[in-house]
């Protein structure tokens, strides 16, 4: 070892600092799972292997919001709950196991790779429940958390409107105070799970202040004055809807937080769910499946095909590591800022590349030859649209990560 005094002093100083902090930090960056994390992943895989029906891959391609899958998810999530696998990352006092963000990540990866057998309930456990824990009244928590924790609830999010997609703060669905109630009129659109959801996390306008004039109402979907229409889509049966509110009346006790607090609450919710779905995991799994099929029929020998597959795998790995860098910071207790948009966009890049690879080299997958690949395609093509458009992520990166002056509006 020829390191001179400067290097030795730098290392020594770092080790003293660590000793002073009383922290145990690995001497190397660690890209391996701990035995506990690996055991958790294996437990999940075993659970999925023994719980999902034999025809699951064909069954799951109908989409996470299809009536069949929604009914299946009720049973499946109930079993998950009994096995303490539904809300392991929730606080112990609320019924969870208080596990760290890595367990949450592993759970999300394994479920998404399997085709998301939790259906729309993944939203409940990822961000709706934690938001209710933070902002809900004791009555709201008593009413809504037990069904979520038992795997029996299905929520939809009433966010987008015909004139308010990426520009969510321009929403116009209005809630007027009337006595002790709110009377809601307006329309939501592209609402996932609305057809079978029992509760809506609804954003309404209560004043003209652009962001501080938005309020959240927790609305039972059987409230008179709600009409739901399904919009046929290419991403699965029963996935997208428009929802109409005509003089729908709910009590003021349905309000989450204060009037005008929605933007702050949503920001908190997104911090809980900032990375979104671990799409890179399913994308990589689909890519490996596609390669396996091509190998079996002798079509994975051309160098051009192999190079394209490797490029897609590299983008999956880039997205995975960008996400893991954020999870590492969350696990350390750091507050995550807008840099998670970079990981989100990396995921969009990998989804696009994997979808393109399969469309080009296994086009029959989009017919009915390979249900798993078709299921991936239907979920993958919305990566740049759902939960905030890719271009919005780029805007955020430009302003808040690169520090560029904001564009003129």
């Amino acid at each position, binding site marked *: 070892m020829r*390191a001179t005094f400067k290097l030795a002093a730098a290392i020594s100083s770092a080790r003293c*600092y660590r000793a002073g902090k009383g922290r145990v930090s*690995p001497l190397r*960056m660690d890209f391996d799972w701990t035995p506990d994390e690996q055991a958790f992943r294996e437990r999940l895989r075993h659970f999925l292997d023994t719980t999902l029906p034999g025809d699951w891959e064909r069954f799951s391609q109908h989409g996470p919001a299809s009536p069949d899958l929604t009914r299946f998810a009720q049973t499946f999530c109930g079993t998950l709950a009994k096995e303490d696998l539904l809300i392991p990352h929730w606080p112990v006092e609320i019924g969870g196991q208080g596990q760290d963000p890595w367990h949450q990540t592993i759970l999300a990866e394994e479920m998404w790779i399997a085709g998301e057998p939790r259906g729309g309930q993944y939203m409940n456990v990822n961000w709706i429940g934690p938001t209710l824990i933070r902002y809900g009244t004791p009555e709201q928590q008593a009413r809504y958390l037990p069904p979520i924790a038992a795997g029996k609830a299905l929520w939809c999010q009433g966010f987008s409107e015909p004139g308010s997609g990426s520009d969510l703060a321009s929403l116009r669905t209005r809630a007027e105070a009337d006595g002790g109630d709110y009377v809601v009129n307006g329309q939501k659109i592209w609402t996932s799970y609305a057809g079978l959801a029992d509760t809506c996390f609804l954003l309404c306008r209560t004043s003209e202040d652009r962001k501080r004039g938005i309020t959240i109402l927790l609305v039972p979907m059987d409230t008179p004055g709600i009409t739901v229409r399904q919009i046929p889509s290419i991403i699965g049966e029963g996935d997208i809807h428009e929802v109409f509110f005509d003089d729908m009346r709910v009590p003021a006790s349905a309000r989450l937080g204060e009037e005008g607090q929605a933007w702050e609450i949503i920001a908190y919710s997104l911090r809980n769910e900032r990375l979104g779905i671990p799409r890179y995991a399913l994308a990589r799994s689909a890519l490996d499946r596609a390669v396996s099929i091509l190998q079996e029929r002798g079509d994975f020998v051309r160098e051009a095909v192999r190079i394209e597959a490797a490029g897609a*795998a590299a*983008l999956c790995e880039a997205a995975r590591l960008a996400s893991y860098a954020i999870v590492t910071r969350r696990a350390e207790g750091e507050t995550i800022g807008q840099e998670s948009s970079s990981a989100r966009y990396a995921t969009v*890049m990998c989804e696009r590349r994997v979808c393109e690879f399969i469309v080009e080299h296994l086009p029959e997958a989009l017919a009915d030859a390979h249900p798993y690949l078709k299921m991936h395609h239907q979920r993958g093509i919305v990566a740049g649209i759902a939960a905030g458009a890719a271009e919005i992520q780029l*805007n955020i990166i*430009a302003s808040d990560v690169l520090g560029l002056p904001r564009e003129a509006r």
Partner: protein
Amino acid sequence: MQVALNEDQRAIRDALDALARPFEEAPVHEAPLVAASPDFARALAESGFLDVACDPDLGTATAGVVVERLARLPFAVEAATRAFFAPLLGDVSGPVCLVEGTRTPRLVRFLEPGACVIVVEAQGVSYFTAGEHQLRRESESLFAYPMASLLDVSEGRAVLAITPGEARTRARAALAAEVAGLMAAALASVCAHLSERTQFGRKLATFQALRHRLAEAQVRTNGVYWMAMKAAATLDPADAALAAWHAQESATATVYDFHQFLGAMGMTLEHPLHFWTYRLKALIGELGGRGASAAAAADAMWG
């Protein structure tokens, strides 16, 4: 799983920051296409940072951190190959170069008399010290590295105790770490320029057409960084090949934009951008280029 620098690595990066501070700006205008600083090279050699991989507690993972940080400087300094091969080479005073096969003539970065040249062949890995007669300096090269053509590979080379596959893995991890630093520096330089320059009555950085492409460059830079760090830490053939492919692909995707956004300014020697971009261009073709990196990744992952 810990996808973050540990305290040792942060301390080393901080110490490198202090060492590099006087050398953050290179002369422009009448300066040559290659920025070299004998003072910095000397300070770096004395610091011992290029030998971090010799410490088993630090390993090549920390070599990756060092290489990435040094690549951000406008000065071209041979660090990557040296840092990743230091535990295998013993005492080496000059720059370390790496070539695949014995084909000559060929353009080699940092080649000079006294340089250690590692030769990776199918049957093994060897090295020799380059003599004056074995090279021709390429002073007209556009690349921002000191370049020379290797004219002859010595017979009777010393054997390096490493397999050809392991040598390529180290070289790919080193390349990815260097690209990560170069991309980060070039991106920062372009962002600074666009945040200052006004056209059509607005800062250029307020135009969405430019912002989105810069943001995508940030996403790529971040991805290359973590893939390089992982490859450096694991020395896994698939990790290294994937990192090298993503590095070369991302360099290809961004270098054009970086120059485009600076307009004529980026074509002149008034701005330091070329110190990073014309090193990136050299690395795009290194180790067989993107095709070879992807093919190696496919072999490692799927046989």
